[in-house]
């Protein structure tokens, strides 16, 4: 098992957002975490990245307990993160954003190779490599956020709401790229409100409600589940 989240409880200040969450991600697969606004999906990712600390439970990544790691140590353990709302370095150019994404690559040549691959995947970013990030369109910004996350050749990518605020046609394009990245061998933990899409691309899914995992299972099976059909599908 690549990532194992065991019984974590976490929150901000006194109040808890997550209550004993268990999530597992295996090598090679896309796992989606689905739920409506405010149920704790982003908080889960923040816990994994060490931005907030779980109060109980453990997070095991690649055989290591990363609970107490600082964020940059977690990044160097091999988890990369494309945060909600993209959070690009708005004043840095596209190229510089990618360089920071690949900050952990020690060797200049490796960085060059990786950059080439990323530009091949997202030709739009190559066209705009010297433009500052805040001048990009929403779709391009999302591409850059994903591109920045894949720069260090991570062992696992956390994607937070890549479809947020984008036109359907651009969402489709971005999900094609996400699948392409996964097919190149990188597992992804995908957080989405767009449940149709998330269930379609992922192998395994977790449905989150009020800070707890309500349901989990094979995505194909969940697509047929009545409760899911009535509550989540066709509304997004």
């Amino acid at each position, binding site marked *: 098992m690549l990532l194992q989240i065991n019984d974590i409880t976490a929150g901000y200040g006194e109040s808890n957002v997550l209550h004993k969450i268990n999530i597992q991600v295996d090598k090679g697969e896309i796992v989606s975490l689905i739920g409506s606004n405010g149920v704790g999906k982003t908080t889960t990712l923040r816990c994994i990245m060490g931005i907030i600390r779980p109060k109980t439970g453990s997070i095991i990544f690649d055989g290591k307990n990363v609970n107490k790691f600082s964020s940059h140590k977690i*990044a160097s353990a091999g988890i990369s993160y494309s945060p909600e709302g993209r959070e690009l*370095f708005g004043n840095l150019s596209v190229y510089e954003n990618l360089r920071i994404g690949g900050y952990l690559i020690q060797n200049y040549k490796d960085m060059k190779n990786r950059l080439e691959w990323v530009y091949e995947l997202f030709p739009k970013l190559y066209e705009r490599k010297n433009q500052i990030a805040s001048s990009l369109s929403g779709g391009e910004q999302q591409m850059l956020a994903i591109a920045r996350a894949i720069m260090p050749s991570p062992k696992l990518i956390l994607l937070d709401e890549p479809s947020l605020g984008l036109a359907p046609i651009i969402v489709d394009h971005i999900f094609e790229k996400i699948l392409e990245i996964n097919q190149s061998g990188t597992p992804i933990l995908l957080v989405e409100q767009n449940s149709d899409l998330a269930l379609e691309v992922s192998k395994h899914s977790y449905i989150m409600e009020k800070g707890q995992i309500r349901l989990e299972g094979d995505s194909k099976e969940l697509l047929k589940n009545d409760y899911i059909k009535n509550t989540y599908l066709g509304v997004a």
Partner: protein
Amino acid sequence: MGLYLLQQIVNSLIYGSVIGFLAIGYTMIYGILGLINFAHGEIFMIGAFTCYILVTFYQFPFFAGVMGAVLASVVTGLLLYYLVYRPCIRNKAPIVAVFIASFGASLGLRYLFMMIFGDQGRAFPAPAYLRGMHMVGQIVFSKRDLVMFVVTIVVMLIITYLIKYTKVGMAMRAVSYNIKIAEVMGVNTNRIIVTTFIIGSALAGVSAIQYGLNFGIVQPSMGFTPGLEGFIGAVIGGIGNVPGAMIGGFIVGIGEILFVAFLPSHLSALRPIFVWGLLFLILFLKPTGLFRPNVKYEGTWGE
């Protein structure tokens, strides 16, 4: 009149550079930590004093004094970070507390030096090879100013290269824009903060030498006015924007000297009006500064 103006500009260039280098320190530290390092003026003062002590008391060669000044400024900056700012950040102190701590550090250092040395001005040592004048047409250039101007250009080029093209420089700008996300990308943000303090403080040391050579004196309260003016230069240049801070510093430093130069001599005490007027105008017309700030403005401060 034209000649007079030209001569005044030549005379004010070094003061512009003094303020510019201080402004860079403010802007870098504010950009990264979101705090105003009020003790930056004292980092500057300690640099100047170190050179004075080494050269005047211990007869070190001037160049060794310069190196000592830069080193002392860097050590002071790092001590301030580790003893004052880092504990504040660690304990999630509210911004007001950090503000007061910063002010306290500034006053503490200044009065410590006053206790030891008294606040009368002391002659800053200038080596013989920096004395003398050159005439170009009818404009007088002192040898000292020429050398310092070359130093300014070289240091500026190094800093620009560092910030713009190196990996550390990129990381510094990224941390300045969004420290949390930079950390998540694998940037060791504490190391970047320390690097920033080192560079900012070293520049204050260079600035202190220029100040000493330009005015010929050192005294414990010498950091106060240039410190404030450096801060204003940083605001004018757009917080977090390093070239902007240098330009902002030049605007303040040169503008101030020209302002006084064209005022009747009995009104020269009005000198601070220029600086504060400039700050007022900038905050009134374009509060983010003349150039693009390199910080992300969010609803809350210091979160």
